[in-house]
Structures are given as structure tokens and as C-alpha cells.
């Protein structure tokens, strides 16, 4: 099972890394989120002294207090609503990485549709290999691709001016970070590969991916704290694994510590991925037919 899965995973990766344009094309969107959106949307500038003129007729103590308030208001917002992130970009990056994983997983089923279309799947189905190895090769290759892309985006976020500012951290933090992103990717790929198992048309998958991508992005804590949302949206966001992955990632970026929040997020992600992996292996066994 493991050998076959790895043989087939290698096939997917070989097709992928030989077309570097594909790899970089997939990076453009997250980089645009970070550099364009992350740098422009700056909560510290939402309230600043420049926009307000303090009336001249108020007592000097009050005017002094007011100007002090305005000077620190931006940082106060970052501290209270954005978990004390040193800048919005640092807050955002965790969300962008999670979204990147969602987007690449959403199209993970595509290659199984191509394989079906071009007959390669038939060859696999008549080979003496477990059906689930075909399924998990698709999942595993997607996860590996997504994690490599995440690492590249992460590095770019650090390198750019006014970019990601990291807290001090140790090896455990890196391990937890990667494991969580791995689990998010595994869960989503299991879901989307399962959806595509019997699909005959690539267009159907695109339609489904486009249908779920934006709602899953906005109904999560990827871009803003969910406390900003109306109650009903908060409920949805709490069911969305991206919320937990984004929260975990950014907490690690900002604090560099495994807080109780991080542990809870990690547990949610474990439950999410384990459930979908079990469900996926079941679906692969009975659903993967000619």
C-alpha cells in the first residue's frame, strides 16, 4: 500500500516540478494577497491624528490626552483585535497560507479526472494495487505541493519590506506549524479528491471549487478576527477548519509559543484530518470504479 502510493505520488510530483511555470503561477495569488492587500490594509492608519483636527477651544489637558490617544490608537487596535500582531501583514500571512492550501486542495481532484479521461486510470484499476493507493497518491501529492508552495510564500513574506515579523521560536513550533498545515491540506484534499472520484468533467470540478472557495475564505478567521463578524457568520466560521489553521499559524508567528489556543486549534485540525482520511479511504475502496 505504502510503496504503491509513493510510486504514484512520485509520478504526480514528476509531472509537477518539470513545469516550474505552474508552481510559480500558483504562488502569484497568495503573494498578491500579502503584498497588495496585506500592506495596504493597515488598521493603524484607520484612526490617526491626521484625519482629525482637535478643536482649539478644548482644555489643553484634554487635547493632550486626545492626541496621545490618536497616536496609540492604531497599536491599540492591533493589540486588542489583532492579537498584538506587530503589523497587519503578520496577522494576515497565517490566513493566506491556509487559504493557499484550500485553493490548491480544491483542484486536487483534477488530475483524477484527467486520468479517467485519458485512460490512465483504467491502467491503474487493472493493476494489482489497492484502490486506496490511487486515492492517497492524489492526496499526498497535493499535500506535498501545497506545503512546498506554503514554504515559498512564507519566505517571500519575510523577505519583502514591511513584511512578516516573527517572534522568537524553537524547533517544536516549526514542527507544530508544518504538521497543522499538513493536516489542513490532507483533510481538504481527501474531501476534494473524493468529490472528483466519479466525475467525468473537469468543468464540474472548477464550478464546485469556485463555489466553495470564496465562502470558505470569508467565513473564516483568515483575513479578520471573527469577532468583527455578525453572530450567524461567526457560527459558520467556527465550523470552518481554516479559522483554526489561520489562528494557529498566526499565534505561532506572533507569540512563538504553544499557547492553550494553539493546542485547541491543533486538536480541531487533527479531528478534521483524521475524520476525512478515514472517510476518504472508505470512499476510495468502494467509490473508485471504472
Amino acid at each position, binding site marked *: 500500500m505504502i510503496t504503491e502510493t509513493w*510510486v504514484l505520488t512520485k*509520478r504526480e510530483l514528476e509531472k509537477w516540478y518539470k513545469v516550474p511555470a505552474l508552481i510559480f503561477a500558483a504562488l502569484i495569488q497568495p503573494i498578491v494577497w500579502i503584498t497588495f492587500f496585506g500592506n495596504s490594509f493597515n488598521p493603524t492608519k484607520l484612526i490617526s491624528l491626521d484625519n482629525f483636527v482637535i478643536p482649539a477651544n478644548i482644555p489643553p489637558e484634554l487635547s493632550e490626552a486626545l492626541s496621545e490617544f490618536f497616536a496609540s490608537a492604531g497599536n491599540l487596535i492591533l493589540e486588542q483585535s489583532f492579537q498584538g500582531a506587530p503589523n497587519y501583514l503578520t496577522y494576515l500571512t497565517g490566513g493566506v497560507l491556509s487559504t493557499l492550501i484550500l485553493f490548491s486542495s480544491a483542484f486536487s481532484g483534477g488530475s483524477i479526472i484527467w486520468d479517467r479521461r485519458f*485512460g*490512465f486510470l483504467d*491502467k491503474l484499476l487493472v*493493476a494489482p*494495487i489497492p484502490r486506496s493507493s490511487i486515492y492517497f497518491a492524489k492526496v499526498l501529492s497535493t499535500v506535498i505541493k501545497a506545503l512546498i508552495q506554503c514554504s515559498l510564500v512564507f519566505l517571500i513574506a519575510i523577505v519583502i519590506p514591511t513584511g512578516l515579523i516573527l517572534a522568537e521560536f524553537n524547533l517544536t513550533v516549526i514542527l507544530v506549524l508544518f504538521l497543522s498545515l499538513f493536516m489542513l491540506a490532507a483533510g481538504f484534499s481527501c474531501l476534494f479528491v473524493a468529490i472528483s472520484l466519479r466525475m467525468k468533467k473537469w468543468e464540474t470540478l472548477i464550478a464546485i471549487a469556485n463555489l466553495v472557495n470564496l465562502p470558505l475564505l470569508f467565513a473564516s478567521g483568515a483575513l479578520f478576527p471573527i469577532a468583527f463578524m455578525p453572530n450567524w457568520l461567526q457560527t459558520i466560521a467556527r465550523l470552518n477548519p481554516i479559522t483554526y489553521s489561520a489562528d494557529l499559524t498566526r499565534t505561532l508567528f506572533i507569540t512563538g509559543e504553544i499557547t492553550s489556543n494553539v493546542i485547541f486549534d491543533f486538536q480541531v485540525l487533527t479531528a478534521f484530518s483524521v475524520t476525512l482520511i478515514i472517510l476518504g479511504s472508505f470512499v476510495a475502496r468502494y467509490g473508485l470504479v471504472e
Partner: protein
Amino acid sequence: MDAISVENLSKIFNKKIVALDDVNFKVKNGEVFGFLGPNGAGKTTTIKVLTTLLRPTKGKVNVAGFDVIKEPDAVRSSIGIVPQSLTLDDDLKGITNLLLSAKLYHVPDKLAKERAEQLLDMVNLKDAIDRKVETYSGGMRKRLELIVGLIHEPKILFLDEPTLGLDIQTRSVIWKYLKNLNKEKKLTIFITTHYLEEADYLCDRIGIIDKGKIMVVDSPSRLKDELGGDIINIKINGEYSEIIESLKQLNHVKKIDIVNQNLRIKVEKGENALPSILEFINSKGIVVTSVSLAKASLDQVFLKYTGKSLRDAESDKADRFKMYFTRRSRTR
């Protein structure tokens, strides 16, 4: 023991479309078995059941001694498949495709490389093997597809329309490989085809299927013999009635009809019968204006059992194949 044994096999799709209806046949070890039938007769469905891609609705199917439902993996390990549609990965090199398949059949790396060398020699693909498959011609793809099906040294090789859409040279080259494999390696071959020359040249026995039912299973020569011989068509200047009775007395002659004002004479061994028949008619002072001899062929056998000519079925299929190719190239 039989290589393939099919007993009372039925396959019903969606509880109403009967694709196979109580099919029975056996394929002996070391035999080349041809499976013929018009489009939609159930050939591909049968192959899919035999190769474990489809579960039978009813019946018992054994391939290489294993039950296709109970021991699908044992069946899969024992068989090689050259499918009708192309199943190579265009994005990978020829050699990668070949070795990938070896890995899926658990052939050790070293052995796989040795076999790959030999097989590539056999089909003359050595020079192209480091190129991506997308650069291959139709004939090269088919040759690669063939050795991909052989890399794990299967006991039974399934070929679904192996030479469809190939030119006549490539086709005869592939026939030669298949014949050699059958002779030297004692490989059992199960082949579906629309080309009667192919069935005639390769197959020890053929089965004809129509509308999901097996019509007949026998050797090509016996089936042709059963047609009752060859047919001679003669057109003469004069009255037929005078000579019909006396013609019937001649050796070889089995039956005489008048069709479209021609004499249609069914004979054994047409090439021997023809001179004596002509001599007889001449001796009566009657002038023969045209003569033709139709040897008993598989085409006529096919026509007899399915009501369709093989050639009609073939052109139909070739068109669809062409369409598939244009569609495929457009999607890239």
C-alpha cells in the same frame, strides 16, 4: 486447466440494459482467442468483466484460475492489458511509463530494467524511449502500450482492438510480435478486433458475440467450412434452365441459385471447381460473359451470425476513433 472460463455470465446495467446475456465460453492455455462482434455487442463489457473492471451481475468467471470477484488482485497480477483507448501518460517519458507500470506490478527494479531492454529491442523503440510520449506517433504509442502490458510477464494478454487506426505496415508488425509471443512464450492471448485478416491470421479460435449473446465459438477454418464452401457467380448468354440440372451432377457443386439473373453456385474448393464448370458450359455451346469466385471468408461467417458485414462495423469504429483523436488534440 483453462486460461479463461466464463459460465452463465450476465451483465445488466441500471437494472434494465442487458449488455451480456448468459455468456459461456472457455479459452485454453496457450491459445489465441479472437472475440468478434458488431459495435455494442458486448465485447468491451466482456473484457471489462474479465479484467476485473466491472463486476458481473450473474455468473462465474475464472481468469488464470482465479475468480474475478473473489480474488481480483490475483487475476490482475496474472494478466496484461493493451486497452483500446490510450492509457499512457503523455507528460512522462516512454521509459518512465514502462518502469512505472513494472513498479505497479511489483517487478523488482533490476529485473524490470532487463526486461525493458529486451522488450524495447523487440518493438524497436530504443531510440525514442527517453522522449516524452506526447511526441510519439500512433504506431509508437501502440508498440509502447503493448510492451507496457508485457513488462510483468503476464500469463494472459488482453488486447482490445490493438491495431485500430494503424497503417497496414504497423499492423502487420504488431501481428508478428503477437504471433511470436504466443509461440515462444506460450502466452495466452485474448483479442477483440474488427479486422478479419487479423482474426484469420492470429486466432486459433474465435467467438462471435451479438446483442450480448455468444453466437458461435470455433476455429476460423471450421467456421469457414461450415459456410458450405465458396461461391461462383456466372453470367451467360442464353437460357439457364437447360444446364442447371446437369450442372448439379458435377463434382464439387452443392447448390445452385439464380440471383439477379446470375448463376450462383455454391461449391467446395472453388479454385478446383471453376475450370470444370466453365468447361462444361462451353461444351454445351453457351457463351460465358463474366465469372467471379468468392472464397469463404470470416466476413461471410460474421455476416451469417450477426447479419452485419465486418467491414461495415469496422468503418463505423474507425470514424469514432478519428473523432476521439481530434477531440483529444483539441483539449490540449
